[in-house]
């Protein structure tokens, strides 16, 4: 290579459990052809980002063969991560959705128990105790 390999360390950066989650926000010209949805726009930008890196790899390579080798290696790294990435994204996403639903439902139940059931039963107990005392007095008076 005549210059640095732009895909150096790509495998490490594709490790989605350990790569930093720090993000950068970029301003791009509002072309009417750009997709409205953020995820689709990110895909467009990432495709262009890798196109720029690919150009740089071709420039840095000493021959077409070397450029093919470098880009093929990067492609293998990307391909290797795909199955687990897709699975984890689906699995983690749906698990989190399920857990968030459970948290909402269980949270309501906990609040209901704390704020209504427990005070209600405690209030009932006080009323029962007061009536039991009154009934006992009445029985003692009657018996005495």
């Amino acid at each position: 290579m005549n210059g640095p390999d732009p895909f150096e360390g790509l495998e490490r950066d594709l490790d989605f459990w350990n790569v930093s989650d720090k993000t950068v926000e970029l301003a791009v010209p509002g072309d009417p052809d750009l997709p409205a949805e953020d995820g689709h726009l990110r895909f467009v930008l990432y495709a262009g980002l890798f196109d720029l890196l690919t150009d740089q790899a071709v420039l840095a390579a000493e021959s077409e063969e070397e450029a093919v080798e470098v880009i093929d290696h990067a492609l293998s790294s990307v391909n290797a991560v795909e199955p687990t990435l897709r699975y984890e994204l689906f699995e983690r996403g749906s698990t989190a959705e399920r857990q968030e639903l459970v948290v909402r439902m269980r949270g309501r139940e906990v609040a209901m128990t704390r704020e209504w059931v427990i005070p209600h039963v405690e209030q009932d107990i006080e009323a029962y105790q007061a009536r039991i005392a009154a009934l006992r007095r009445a029985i003692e008076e009657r018996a005495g």
Partner: protein
Amino acid sequence: MMRSVMVLAVDWERLRDAYPDRTDKWLAADAVRRGLRLVQGPVADAGPSGPTADRRLAWLQASFPRRSGSICTQRFDLVTGRERFRRAAEMERRTYDEHLELERDLVPPLKERAKTLRAELRALEEQLRQLGVDPEGIEPKIDWPRTLAVDTYTRPHYEPNESRRRRTVEFFRRTTRG
């Protein structure tokens, strides 16, 4: 009008390192322009078999950026979702513990106490009736419809995972023996 888009910092750093003389503004605009051309263009076929280097290179240049873009977009969703996944799991565990504490340790003694008192109260009322006294005339009265009915309440049985595991192992041991 400008739009904004987020990417992982590590990816942006990679591009910056490859083009140290270019500004972020230039790189972002060029990446979007190139990306749009790639996304709107035809999807490259599977790589040519046994190709010459120039054909293979042309194919890689056409297909690799798009494919990497797709994978990195999904990776962005997963990486930026890690905190949400962690928080959801932690909240689920926390509310589970809280719910368990309430339903196992706090509510049952109260409901059992209320159940015992209701039975005692009814027994005393019956005793009074047998003594010829109408308990309805004695204050304070209970507004029964407003009370929580606990007469048939039974304490829930919580089984620890370990004993459930032991029972399952025992079950299969018995069935496979036969």
